[in-house]
């Protein structure tokens, strides 16, 4: 009996503690963010949170997840009905979440006309699915080629290559004159990163993976095969290397062990951090147009940005809700004057882009000029984007590692993509 009483007391105390924990005040807004989990960006996110809390007296609970884990965690939270108030997404993920219950149409919160008045059209378009505005942009830019001035100089290259042939010649020079370097840190390891490199080269050679109607085109014509053969050739001649993902590329470029890689403008911030030189490394970071097959052609680049989505119990929210106020703050002039620049990216509002700090940033100006007309990610707009990415990544990787010919890989890619696209809907 004595034991029973002791146990009962323990249960009561534990229950009491549990209840008191539940009764503790929760934050007004929860914010899932991958920038918050990145060493280079965390201080900037923390500054935003402090600014919001000081202005509104509302509290924010930041939930940091690595970029690669973000989709999975939002998805799991959706299934367990524990979605945050606001979440940060990569622009290419939005179609995957279009059917998640609780996603708020922000046109209904802020008004379509008002949003069009505030935001730059290209940035606003990244958050649209059909007539719905399921996300608002946080930062924007494109994925394009970056050169490393220090490495190029060491290789005796004084002019940035503009054609594919010149690009190859420059890579050979780097390989021969800069020991232990990877001339072009092409993505060869992670399917998500491989997709972007392949997509850009495929566009460069005049190809298309999937058209607007959902018809798979990569195996029709020679462009896909030419693009992949070009990539395979770089591997064979040791101008690119296996086991490279975007983070590896950033580190190698920051260590002056690579001359070229594809990335978003945010790369400048990563390179500052990884080089250990801070802003002094900026002189080596050269945004450049993707080389073309013949002079006069349009350089290829991909639209890129970070988005903000809002979740509410029934998918409805008003502008006075704490989560809505938080999104308003993140896209306000005050936030847009600092955060995008700290991330080496373009602001998303018209007033933000007109800010003298932005127009006077030579890196961003050079980036915008080099990007030309960025095209929408032609894979990310489909609801089965994850499967398409895996198929393309596997086939490209198979050819790069010599497991199959470029022709076989493209034909296999065509077949597998057709199977995947058989019953799929376009999301925007």
């Amino acid at each position: 009996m004595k034991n029973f009483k002791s146990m009962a007391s323990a249960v009561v105390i534990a229950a009491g503690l549990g209840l008191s924990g539940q009764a503790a005040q929760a934050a007004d807004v929860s914010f899932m963010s991958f920038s918050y989990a990145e060493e280079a960006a965390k201080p900037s996110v923390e500054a935003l949170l402090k600014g919001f809390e000081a202005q509104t007296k509302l509290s924010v609970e930041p939930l940091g997840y690595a970029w690669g884990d973000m989709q999975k965690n939002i998805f799991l939270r959706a299934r367990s009905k524990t979605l945050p108030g606001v979440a940060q997404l990569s622009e290419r993920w939005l179609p995957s979440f279009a059917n998640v219950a609780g996603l708020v149409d922000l046109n209904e919160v802020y008004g379509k006309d008002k949003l069009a008045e505030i935001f730059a059209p290209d940035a606003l378009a990244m958050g649209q699915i059909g007539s719905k505005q399921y996300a608002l942009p946080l930062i924007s830019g494109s994925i394009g080629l970056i050169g490393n001035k220090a490495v190029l100089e060491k290789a005796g290259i004084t002019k940035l290559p503009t054609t594919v042939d010149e690009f190859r010649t420059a890579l050979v020079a780097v390989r021969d004159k800069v020991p232990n370097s990877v001339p072009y840190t092409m993505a060869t390891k992670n399917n998500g990163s491989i997709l972007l490199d392949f997509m850009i080269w495929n566009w460069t050679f005049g190809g298309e993976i999937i058209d607007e109607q959902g018809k798979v085109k990569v195996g029709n014509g020679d462009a896909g095969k030419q693009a992949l053969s070009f990539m395979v050739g770089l591997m064979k001649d040791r101008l690119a290397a296996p086991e490279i993902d975007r983070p590896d590329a950033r580190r190698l470029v920051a260590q002056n062990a690579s001359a070229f890689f594809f990335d978003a403008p945010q790369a400048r911030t990563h390179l500052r951090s990884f080089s250990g030189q801070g802003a002094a490394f900026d002189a080596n970071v050269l945004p450049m147009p993707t080389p073309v097959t013949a002079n006069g052609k349009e350089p290829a680049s991909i639209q890129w940005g970070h988005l903000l989505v809002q979740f509410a119990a029934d998918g409805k929210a008003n502008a006075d809700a704490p989560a809505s106020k938080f999104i308003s703050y993140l896209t306000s002039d005050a936030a847009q004057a600092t955060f995008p620049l700290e991330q080496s990216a373009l602001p998303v509002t018209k007033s933000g882009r007109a800010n003298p700090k932005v127009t006077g940033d030579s890196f961003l100006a050079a980036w915008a000029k080099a990007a030309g007309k960025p095209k929408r990610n032609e894979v990310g707009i489909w609801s089965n984007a994850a499967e398409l990415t895996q198929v393309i990544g596997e086939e490209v990787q198979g050819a790069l590692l010599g497991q199959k010919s470029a022709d076989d890989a493209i034909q296999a890619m065509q077949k597998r993509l057709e199977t995947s696209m058989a019953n799929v809907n376009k999301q925007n």
Partner: protein
Amino acid sequence: MSLAADITTAPSSARVSPHAVRGGLKAGQRRIGVLLLLPAAIAFGLVILYPFLQALALSLFEYTLETPAPRFTGLANFAKIAATPDVWQAFATTAIYVFFTTTGTLILGLAWALILNQPFRGRGLLRSMSLLPWVLPSTVSAFIWGWIFNSRYGVLNALLLELGFIDMPQAWLSTSTGAMIAVIITKIWLSIPLFMAFFLAGLQNMDREQVDAARVDGANNWAILRDHVLPHLRPVLIVVVVLGVIGNLQQFDTIYALTGGGPVRATAVLSVEVYRRAFEQWDIGFASAIGVLWVATLLPPAFLYLRMLVKGA
């Protein structure tokens, strides 16, 4: 009338004690047993049984990002598996992985146990240090091995270059065979301490006089191992093989951390395949169906193990 005549063996109709209850002491013990078992049973039900039954049910549903609520499709997911070569390839990859990891660990674990069973100075320290791979979190071990095999900074390449076996650094994790060997070596390294501990316990129970007698009769080391040690270790060997097969069939973390299932699909075992389908492609129903088949592959060794436990008991 003798005293003995008063003693009767017939059962008395009177109760021994007014507090005695039907079933007596045994029933009371049984109730306490059930009560003590209850927390573990509840935990098992919540953490293992319920999710398992849910996964079993989900394998009969279509449940993707485009279907906010699961839609019953019967055996469609299993039909899809039959028509998906990637899944069958995952079964074959799993079989290769399980065979080599279990065999490798068995041989090296036994060899290490035989060494550590010999008397020598520092044996206690070496035994303790041998447990280190087992103590380390498996993902940490995977990253350590990832760096060892790294093509640019790896110790393995540095060593082979220094010894003149290779002319330039090799990308071990970028070939199908290299990646498979890497994940197998990593798992063997992780599992050796556990296997070694089992074998060492078995060896310490062995009658040394039997070995000494065999030596007097002229038996060499190999003969002693074959004719005396291995027969003595037979029960341990069976348990270790069964546990090893079960553990290796379930392996996920080291493979995912080291290769992510690649290059291409070279190390995509069933656990990685289920993870990719569920958390990269969001096809929960299909992933559950693969998971059900995966559990089916686990059942024979699990059954064997349980049978041995029951028999042993």
